[in-house]
């Protein structure tokens, strides 16, 4: 049962430990209501992929994920024939003698030998209703695939020469994500509802951290979030995302840290910063300065 209001959407996601702002909830609600694909763009680690997972489990639908990469083509995205099995079947037919050429074709190109890839799976009826189709990191594919996808997303049907056309009984809930390593074509964006997923504010990030790493003490969570928030205002090549915040908090828990200190930060910096240039920037007194700023911002005014 899809939610019937923005508030209901927000609550539904919150039930899955996905804390989102009103803007994102609105877009999700609209996408469910209008049956339009949802195009989420944003920096890495801000929770774009997570929302698909949260939606699928909240709605009790199956999550089908298509991870994109350069050179992705129809045979790995839609369907493939099981050639090894087909070859064996041909050999078996020859061995038993009397290959009937006409019927062989009908026997070999049947559902039995079909390997379904994510896009085709998403067009099959699923228990619990239309699945959630997550097309992850679309920017990593190339333009020919994008053009193909445009067609697939507009009518949700696939034609297999030997089997005919397979059409989705009801269109899947489609979520596309992109990290902007390439600008996705306007034509595709036009078909979708677009949302730029931004870093959360201080309060929301605390909520997220408490939902995702509930065992962290509140004082530590506040320090971690304040530090990461301060870090995002610095001029870094790759700012830490929410995923990094959660990771880092878990690292600190594993090390039994109760409060941040420059030494602890220096030891665990690899959990939040993934570029050597950025790590170097925080060597020495810089980390301490940001930490002091972060702690100062936590003082009750």
């Amino acid at each position, binding site marked *: 049962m899809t939610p019937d209001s923005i508030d209901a959407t927000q609550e539904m996601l919150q039930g899955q430990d996905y804390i989102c702002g009103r803007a994102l909830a609105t877009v999700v609600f609209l996408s469910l209501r209008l049956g339009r694909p949802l195009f989420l763009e944003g920096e890495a680690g801000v929770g774009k992929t997570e929302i698909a997972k949260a939606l699928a489990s909240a709605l009790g639908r199956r999550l089908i994920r298509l991870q994109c990469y*350069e050179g992705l083509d129809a045979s790995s995205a839609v369907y493939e024939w099981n*050639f090894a099995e087909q070859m064996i079947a041909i050999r078996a037919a020859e061995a038993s003698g009397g290959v009937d050429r006409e019927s062989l074709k009908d026997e070999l190109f049947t559902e039995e030998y079909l390997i379904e890839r994510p896009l085709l799976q998403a067009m099959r009826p699923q228990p619990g209703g239309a699945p959630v189709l997550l097309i992850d990191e679309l920017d990593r594919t190339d333009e020919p695939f994008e053009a193909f996808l445009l067609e697939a997303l507009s009518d949700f049907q696939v034609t297999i020469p030997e089997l005919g056309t397979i059409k989705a009984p009801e269109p899947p809930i489609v979520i596309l994500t992109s990290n*902007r390593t*390439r600008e996705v074509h306007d034509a595709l964006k036009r078909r979708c509802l677009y949302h730029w997923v931004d870093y959360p504010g201080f309060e929301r990030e605390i909520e997220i951290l408490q939902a995702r790493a509930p065992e962290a003490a509140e004082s530590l969570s506040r320090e971690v979030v304040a530090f990461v928030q301060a870090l995002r205002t610095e001029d870094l090549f790759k700012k830490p995302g929410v995923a990094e915040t959660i990771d880092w908090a878990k690292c600190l828990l594993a090390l039994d840290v109760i409060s941040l200190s420059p030494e602890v930060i220096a030891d665990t910096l690899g959990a939040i910063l993934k570029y050597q240039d950025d790590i170097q920037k925080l060597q020495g007194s810089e980390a301490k300065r940001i930490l002091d700023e972060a702690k100062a911002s936590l003082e009750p005014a």
Partner: protein
Amino acid sequence: MPEYAPLDLPEHPKLTHNITHFARALRKAGLPVGPGRVVDAIRAVEAAGFTSQRDFFYTLRACFVNRPEHRAVFAQIFRLYWRDPRYMEHMMAMMLPAIRGVQEERAAQAGEKRAAEALLDGQQPDLPEADTQGTDEETVIEVDASLTISTEERLRTLDFEQMSVAEIAEAKRMLAKLTLPVQPLPSRRGQPSHTGHRIDARKTLRAAMRRGGEMRRIHLTKPRPRWPNLVVLCDISGSMSQYSRMVLHFLHAVANEKGAGWAKVHAFTFGTRLTNITRHLATRDVDAALAAAGQEAQDWEGGTRIGACLHAFNRDWSRRVMGQGAVVLLITDGLDRDDPGALSHEMQRLHLSARRLIWLNPLLRWEGFAPKATGIRAMLPHVDTFRAGHSIATLEALAEALSRPDDAGEKARLMAQL
């Protein structure tokens, strides 16, 4: 106001004459109008009749314009030719950008200048010529104030001078040269080939099915080539102003050249700040594109902060436009007053994320150019190719350089002087 000879346009001739003259004007302004079109237009006007000027306009436009970017020029020429005699005076005044004594009631619109030139051919005051000074032998002693970096930053919007007919001709010439053999990259997609290394199982089996399960041969694939993207970073600060305008025309041509071997062309201008002008370079009248880019780029002819702008590019754009292995064209004189350490660092990052980094520097046109400025010394080690680029000839040489993967231009010679 200088005196102009009256235009040699027929006063009350037959319509046929008029349309023929009109077509000539269009042709001069760069629209591809052949005699066949003129005949069509005359027939069309006869068929459509003379009910209103608007219909007449649309009838002619239907015959003469077949590309959206030509519409602006057509409209201007039409207005000039068929309508308003006073408009002529306005156009005359427009042709005098240098000695503009006439108070303009409005700024020039896109396409106007080209329309005016096409119609006022031969009676125009001196127009600024495109810089066509080639790499000829005579050394000119130039005392060029553009070699001094402006110390104070002047942020202002400047209307690019509109492109003249001569410049368009040049740009087109460059364009013809620019169908260059870029080195294609192997992609992960396959194409059928007898000499490939990957088996196309689907095809093999389908072929076998046609023979009742008998395999005649294995179908193979090899990687299909794809074209790299081009990313252009163009300096538009004061010391580069004469030159960057020309380069932008050139870019416009490159960006709109279909099948020139570039998958995509991204263009950025920088001076005191970085501006993405990619969209302005797409499918538009040249004038309109440059005017829009001029509005975007607020720092035309201000100072230069190469390091800061490269930093902005690396931070905000490099992952977005270089993800697919792009060739980078950096167009700047390298005169930068910021910290050379930071500049060197940013150049290194740019170099690491580019498939190939080509630096075009107009200062190379001076004999005995030596890498003395700190900015140049900081940047030089991090480029793959270092070339001059101050004239059509050198840009043509660039096209040639792009097709040679190991071309380093003048880099080795100058590295020796560091």
